[in-house]
């Protein structure tokens, strides 16, 4: 047992050190920060070491100490705490100083100047992720580890909230669209909610149907698989004439605002994609129920509804939730397409940014999508595990 965990810790040390060295490389690499005199020009890229001035050396120091401390024969828990904090500090220093440099550059050049993170800076952030990912393996699972792991995320959010990043290029794009951002975010979330909601209702019904009447299983999943395979843009394009036609013929749909473009095709397509994982997992959950347990439930005299509520549902729920999790993450990323067909959402920034070659505007759309997807993934995973632990050592 302790031999195995020691081996895992040794391996994590390789990862932590490599991560830290990657951080060193990223600090020295050319595209650290990109300074542009306005939104359109290409601008000038500097390595982080140069761009952050003295703080660049601090950053370098942090990486090197993280790499070195991974090897100092301190107790693993102590090493874990120190290196995790160092990893977190690198990302915080990087982001904080980026905000400061952006402000300085604006004061120097004028208010239309933009400062963006170059690819080397993103690489440095990934290196910090790798260091934290590895060094937390030296710590025992528990709330303290969770706090340490997510501290940099909280820190960056705090920095953004404090206004320290207000001149960062993404923040500028955000400021330009101001309340537009929150409107699109709400819209995006409503697409996700609509799709996953439909997915849950339809997917659960179809999954249960296939599980109860096994002869229908190939048909149900055959059709759902076809929907799953259709290319997003083609699918949403196909919905255009169909929904236009339906809306022309059915006044109620027209009053609801169903048109060939806008929210209606987005919801239809995302829902169709969301059904499959939920239906598949519902089916698997029911089919893989232990027949002995079901037999026992009947044998002790449970009624049908009681059996469902006390045994089948609780046992199937974690698998079902796993399906919902897939659908949620998938829809969060998929809803980007709404921006292309007049449905708005965070995708609007992405497609607008693509048209203008404005990376920071694209990021204004992409970063919240990634953050939301990860957030949903984590939260639902916690729920899934909580519902299905049943004494397993997790």
């Amino acid at each position: 047992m302790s031999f195995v965990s020691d081996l895992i810790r040794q391996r994590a040390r390789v990862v932590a050190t490599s991560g830290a060295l990657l951080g060193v490389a990223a600090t020295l690499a050319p595209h650290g920060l990109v300074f542009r005199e306005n939104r359109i020009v290409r601008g000038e890229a500097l390595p982080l070491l140069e761009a952050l001035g003295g703080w660049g050396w601090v950053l370098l120091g942090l990486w090197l100490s993280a790499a070195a401390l991974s090897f100092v024969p301190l107790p693993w828990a102590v090493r874990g705490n120190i290196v995790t904090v160092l990893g977190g500090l690198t990302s915080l220093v990087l982001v904080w100083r980026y905000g400061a440099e952006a402000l300085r550059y604006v004061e120097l050049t004028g208010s239309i100047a933009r400062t963006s993170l170059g690819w080397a800076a993103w690489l440095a952030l990934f290196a910090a992720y790798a260091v934290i990912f590895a060094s937390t393996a030296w710590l025992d699972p528990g709330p303290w580890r969770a706090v340490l792991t997510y501290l940099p995320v909280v820190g960056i959010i705090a920095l953004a909230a404090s206004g320290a990043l207000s001149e960062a290029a993404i923040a500028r794009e955000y400021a330009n669209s101001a309340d537009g951002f929150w409107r699109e975010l709400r819209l995006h979330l409503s697409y996700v909610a609509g799709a996953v909601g439909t997915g849950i209702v339809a997917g659960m019904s179809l999954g249960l149907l296939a599980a109860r009447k096994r002869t229908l299983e190939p048909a149900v999943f055959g059709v759902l698989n076809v929907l799953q395979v259709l290319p997003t843009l083609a699918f949403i394009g196909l919905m255009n004439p169909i929904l236009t036609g339906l809306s022309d013929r059915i006044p109620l749909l027209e009053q609801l605002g169903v048109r060939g473009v806008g929210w209606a095709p987005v919801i239809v397509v995302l829902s169709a994609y969301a059904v499959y994982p939920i239906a598949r997992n519902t089916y698997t959950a029911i089919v893989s129920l232990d027949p002995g347990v079901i037999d026992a439930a009947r044998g002790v005299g449970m009624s049908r509804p009681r059996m469902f509520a006390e045994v089948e549902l609780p046992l199937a729920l974690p698998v079902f939730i796993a399906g919902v999790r897939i659908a949620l993450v998938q829809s969060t990323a998929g809803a980007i397409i709404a921006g292309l067909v007049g449905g708005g959402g965070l995708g609007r920034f992405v497609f607008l940014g693509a048209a203008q070659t404005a990376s920071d505007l694209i990021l204004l759309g992409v970063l919240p999508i990634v953050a939301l997807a990860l957030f949903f993934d984590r939260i639902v995973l916690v729920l899934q595990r909580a519902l299905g632990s049943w004494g397993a050592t997790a």
Partner: protein
Amino acid sequence: MRDARASVTIHWASITALFAAVVWMTFDVAGFERLLRLLVPGQDVVTYPTKALPLLMAEQLFLTASASGIALVIGSALGAVALSRVGLPFRDLIVSAGSLAQTVPTVAIMALIIPATGYGARPVIVALVLYSILPIMLNVIAGIDGVPPDVSDAAHGVGMSPAQRLIWVQLPLAMPVIMGGIKNMLIINVSAATLGAVVAAGGLGMPILAGFHRYNNAFILQGALPAMALALLFDRLLSSPNAGATAAAEA
């Protein structure tokens, strides 16, 4: 038994039908045009004027195939590295970073690398390769990991070298999982290549986007129908003909 044979028949029949549909829509300009007029009555111009369908289809196939091919090579190689002693410590990180990367929409990657690559086919291919490497890697790892240890052990026991073991025992047993990964990649790439139209990469997304801009449903269908048929064809080609039957037999 009869079920199995029936499902094999259905499998090959659907492949033939889809292939025929793709070929017909691509090359029978007049015939496809008649169909579009039927589907979208009252539209004067039903054929996307900028590029002919064979060219669009060729672009679509080129984008999909080149990205998938490159990703397959790099992904398998990196998968092999991850399975080696050197890569072992990094496996958890790869899995974790992989699931993180999957939350980034492909079209966003395309858009983000435009400054580096310019518009056209290049951002699409680079984005799709970047996006596809990790799933291929993960499937190679999962496939080899999924080989029962006693089978690998037996191969070791009969005197195979590690390389022989990989080629004769582990890879063949891991193939279904790896093929599953390739199938998913291809389907994602067909879909994403359609979106490549957004960054002017050509392909079947072009008429669809033009259709949206010009309120011409015939253009949309002209891109959408072949794209769908192509995706379904790939899906069928890379699925086991017995998948349906085995599922029914297990039940």
